[in-house]
Every structure is written in structure tokens, then in C-alpha cells.
């Protein structure tokens, strides 16, 4: 699947590990239930965790310093919990690694995702990058603080978006 990061399409080098499968070497993403197993590997690559929208990010509190990536899943675009998960990872747990989202996401949600601290989006194969770019460029101002270090601009709660 193509990965959209900073306006560019990138190859996704992370391998998602299915439930029963053995853990391969290399950079891997494991479900929350296999976090301990993942942490038990010896320098075989980087580790990331896949959180479902009902999972609590607090479950990662201990392990987070050893994780390089958290992948959040939108079962459907209407399920807005990953926005809160991403923001909490950045704001409460000070996570500095990659936060990516997968599942059913709309380009119209892209700016919201970025402002909640998401760094990359897994796109459907048939996605039109121009639509995503346009969604990112749609607005130049926001009216509330976010976890990005946006500069307050001019008046009241406004922030300039880039």
C-alpha cells in the first residue's frame, strides 16, 4: 500500500504481522496483543504496534520508548476515535515516532489527522494523490490550538496552517 508522508508517496517498509504468524526479522508492526512478543525480539529490526480504534493508548505507556511506529486503524471513516488516540500519543505520552493511520480514511480528514499528530496515511491503491494534496491546501487558517507547534497568528485563537 502506498504511504503518504509530508505530501510524498513513500514505499512502506514495515511488515504487518498477522495474528498467528511467526515474527519475521526486519521492521514489523504487531497487534497490541503481541506487544510483549515483539519487545522480546533481539535487535532484529524496529518495532511498531497496530492499535484498533477501541484500544486504549495507555496500554503503550511502558513500551512506548522502545516503539518507532504506532499504526491506528479507522474501521470506518466515521469512527473518530483515532483522532483522540493520536493526539493523546503526542500530548500525554510525548511519543515522537511515526503515527500512521490505515483503514477507511477520507482525504477530507487529512488536515484533521495531521493536526492531531498523525504523520503518515496508508492510502488505497487507487487513491488520487492530487485530491489529498488539495485537501491539505484547502485552508490556511485554523481556529484552535493543536498538538502541532503552529504559531498563533494575529487574533484570538487563530493558527496559521501550512
Amino acid at each position: 500500500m502506498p504511504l503518504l508522508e509530508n505530501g510524498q508517496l513513500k514505499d512502506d517498509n514495515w511488515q504487518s504481522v498477522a495474528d498467528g504468524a511467526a515474527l519475521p526479522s526486519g521492521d514489523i508492526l504487531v497487534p497490541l496483543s503481541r506487544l510483549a512478543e515483539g519487545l522480546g525480539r533481539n535487535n532484529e529490526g524496529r518495532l511498531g504496534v497496530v492499535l484498533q480504534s477501541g484500544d486504549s493508548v495507555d496500554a503503550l505507556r511502558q513500551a512506548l520508548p522502545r516503539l518507532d511506529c504506532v499504526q491506528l486503524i479507522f474501521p470506518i471513516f466515521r469512527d473518530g476515535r483515532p483522532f483522540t488516540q493520536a493526539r493523546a500519543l503526542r500530548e500525554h505520552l510525548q511519543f515522537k515516532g511515526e503515527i500512521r493511520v490505515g483503514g477507511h480514511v477520507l482525504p477530507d480528514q487529512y488536515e484533521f489527522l495531521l493536526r492531531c499528530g498523525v504523520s503518515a496515511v496508508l492510502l488505497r491503491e487507487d487513491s488520487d494523490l492530487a485530491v489529498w494534496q488539495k485537501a491539505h491546501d484547502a485552508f490556511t487558517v485554523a481556529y484552535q490550538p493543536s498538538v502541532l507547534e503552529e504559531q498563533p497568528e494575529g487574533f484570538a485563537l487563530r493558527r496559521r496552517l501550512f
Partner: protein
Amino acid sequence: MSHAPQSALPVGHYAYDDVDRTFLKQRVAQFRDQVERRISGALTEDEFKPLRLMNGLYLQLHAYMLRVAIPYGVLSSSQMRALAQIAQRYDRDYGHFTTRQNIQFNWIKLEETPDILGLLADADMHAIQTSGNCIRNVTADQFAGAAADEVLDPRVYAEILRQWSTLHPEFTFLPRKFKIAISGSSQDRVAARFHDIGLMAREGENGRPVFEVYVGGGLGRTPVVGVKLRDDLPEEDLIAYLEAILRVYNEYGRRDNMYKARIKILVQALGVDGFRDRVNAEFSAMDKARYKLPETIVEAIRSRFGVPDFEEAGNGPEKLVQQRKADRAFDFWVQTNTHKHKQAGYASVTISCKPAGGIPGDVTSAQMNLLADLADQLSFGELRITHLQNVVLGHVRQDKLYDLWQVLEQNGLGTANVGFITDIIACPGLDYCALANARSIPIAQKLSERFASPDLQREIGPLRLNISGCINACGHHHAGHIGILGVDKRGQEAFQITLGGAADQAEVSIGQIIGSAMSEDETVDAIARIIDTYLTVRTAGESFIETCRRVGTTSFKDAAYATA
């Protein structure tokens, strides 16, 4: 002589600047693009739906319905004229004022919507977040900035919340819609405890306001009276605390069943203490500096509100006394349709949008234009929509009331019934609404005709009659002293009556159903018998709701189901 605003700032609401206007233009462009993607098939209807809803566009029985935001219910004369233009050009020449202080247009074409939004943007208006599972238009007291009993102006805070919630990155895909109301007086004129969050402001010790915070109220199929979460929230924590509440709701609110997705269900499930614990945990963990609302920001927003330039009262009040003595009908209207103003020589006027036999809240484009002209001539160019579906001119000189009343009378807007039985709240019902069981409008019209006599209404006194076409309760039937609920009785439209609901200042309660459903005409007759019973059993000076609370519902129920 004209009372048109002296300064460039519109009186009573926030003045947009270039940044706000650019933002609205970008929003219109975004929606135009979304409509094109829908028409081309790039977006499925399922994907397009929440996007159009976030621009106030519903698909109804016969056409699209567009709900336009009127933040805290206040608009300027030029904005009212823009609404009139939309009614005329894109609808069937009328609009419908809603209980959430917005206006709805019922006959809209999808392809024309971007142009309508463009027209609105030119008038500094929009339909953002008037629908969808997001933070909706924040409502406020219709006498804000004018009422003699006001502690502070709630509109400034409603505007701050409007801006903060606009395209909020985290709270745009909540489990369900989210409604906030704010009152600037200890007299609750916003039904604060029937909202997801209700804020009641009062002055704090340092001269800055503090807020009582209620959470988890709502109507709909599970009516709940909101519970108090905080007693004394300081102004600077307003945004941080609301962030905390919404974070908890977004994370834990139910998403498996849309009927159980409102915050009220979560508050019930966790208990108010359990809910408060989570909110407080979130509140204490968050980066306070980031979410702080400093006094400077509040004052910066306040400085964008125009204030009326009042004149000396002169002999206005005496003149009014004379005119009231001379004309009994005018005197009645002044009694029912005006509200005490903090400024000597002025009054706030409620213009009833409920003439005898009319459709509650419906206003034609000609009436909108007239209201705009009257606002320019008499009330600093400012108009307000009330949650009871009427229009308020906030600041009218007392010696202009007689002229105003005569013009209103000539144009079908002079009905002296505010707060009376014919000041009915009704939702659109089966005439428009895809969710309806029954039509709300015809029964409202019949009741309004039945009780049209001004003397009879005055005899009955204060009475709130609310009608919803289905259990979603858009017409607030649960909060009516008398409520009417449309139900489906074996494929026929039928109505249940509730008694004893109230969203009044003194007491908040939920009406109880008194018995099985009846046809439209039977319901009208049953209500007439309920009123007769009240007139017989009341004690001197006792209002309907007071009698209801004192004697209970049994005698009313017997009357309702008595067949002659």
C-alpha cells in the same frame, strides 16, 4: 430618524475580518469540490453524506434541506436580507426558524448548494456544523446584551466556542452530534439542562466570569435532564475543560448503536462521579498553557462586537404609558411581547412568528425583508432568532413601540401571544421530514386557531405547548407543559399527549405521557378539555404548570379521554 449602527462593527455579533472571510471562501471551494466529486462518483453517497451534513445539507422526503447557522441566534439586517434572497431565489419564498436559532430552507437542489453557500459567505454566514456528528451551533439567550437581569454577555463566549469548535481536528467525527448552550444570567433562557453541555455564567470573585457546567442533558428518544459537573469553572479554563469533556466523550461514547451514542448515555453509564473523574483526569493531564483562554483573547473577541449607541430616554416611557392606555390591543401586545431592558427608555421586543392558524417559525422572504428594515430603523440593525422560533428586536425605544406594533399588525407579525398557548413550538414533521411519524404542522395550525382568541389566551395564561412529529423530539415535546408527540398507530398518524414538562427557569422536568394515542382532531379536542379542566381547578394566580404539579395528571387524563 435611523438607528443604523454608528460604527463599522455590527451590533450584537462578531464582525468578520479578512481572515474569517478567506476561511469561508476556502470552505465554499472545498464543498464545491466535494459536490463535484460526488457527482462524478469519486465519492460514494455514504462518504459524501457526512461531508454534506457538515455543511448543513440534509436529504429529506421531497428535496434537500439546508440549515444555515445563525450563531447565538444573532444576525444583522443585511444578513437577514441575504436569507430572504436565498428563500426567494433557491427555495419557495420562505424559510423556517428552528429551535436551535438557525434557519432551514426546505426545497434546495444539491447542484445549487455551493452557490448558496457562496452567497452566504458574502454575507459572513455559513452552514458549517449545523448538522453531523460534531459540535453544533452554540445557542445563547435571546435577550443577551439587553436583559436587565444579565450578569454578562453570553454571546462573546458563544463566539469563542464557535471559533474553537469550527473544523476542530479531533471533534468532527464524534459518536453523535453535540449541542452547547450558554446563558449569561441565572435565569436560564436557553434550556441549559437539555443540552449536551449547558453553561450558566455568573460573575466570579476577580470580576471575570465563572461557569456552572451541566452535562448530559438532551431530549430525543431518551430525555434526560443534565447534571452539574462543575460549579465554578474559571473563564481561562473554559476551552481546556470543554476539550477534556469532549475527549472523554470521543473515546468512550458508544458507537455501536446510534440511539445510545449521545453523551447523556455515557454519563448515565459511568455515573456522574465516574464521568467527572475521567474528565478531571484528562483535564489535569493536559497541557494547560496550550488550551488556556486568556483574558486578552476574550477581550479581543469582545472588541469585535458592535455595541448599541443608546439615546436618552427623554419622555419615551411616559408616551408609552399614554399609548397603552389609549389602545387596549397594543397594551396586551406590550405585556406579552416585550421584555425589560437594562437601558432606561428601551425595551426588547419579541415578534411572534406564530399568527393564528399559521405555521410556527415559517417566515416569507417579504417578511424577512420587512424585519430587516425594522431592525435598521429601530434596533441598530440587529435581529435575533429565539429558540422558541420567534424573532427579537433587542433594543427598541419605548416611544417607537406603537409605530412598530402597527407595522407588524399590518404584516401578520403583530400577534400578542408570546408565552401563551398559541406560541407553539413545532418541528417540520411529516410534511418534510423523512423520520417523521406524523405531521406536526396541521395540528399546530388547528390548535392555534382553536385558541386564537386573545382574551381566551390571556385567561389561560403562560403555557408552553410543544409538538414533535416523532420521538426525536426536535419540537421539544418533552419540555412542553403540554407536549404532543406524533406516533404511528397501525399505519395511521396519531398523537400522544404529555403533561408536566418544563425547561423553565425555576424548574426543569420531563413531561409524562398520559395515555394512548389519538387522531389529530381527537387530540385537539382532548387538549381543549385539558384546558377547561385547568381553568376549573386552578387556584387564583396559578399557572398551568403549577396546577399540573399540584394536582397531578389524573384529572387531566380523565378529561382528555372523556368522550362527550
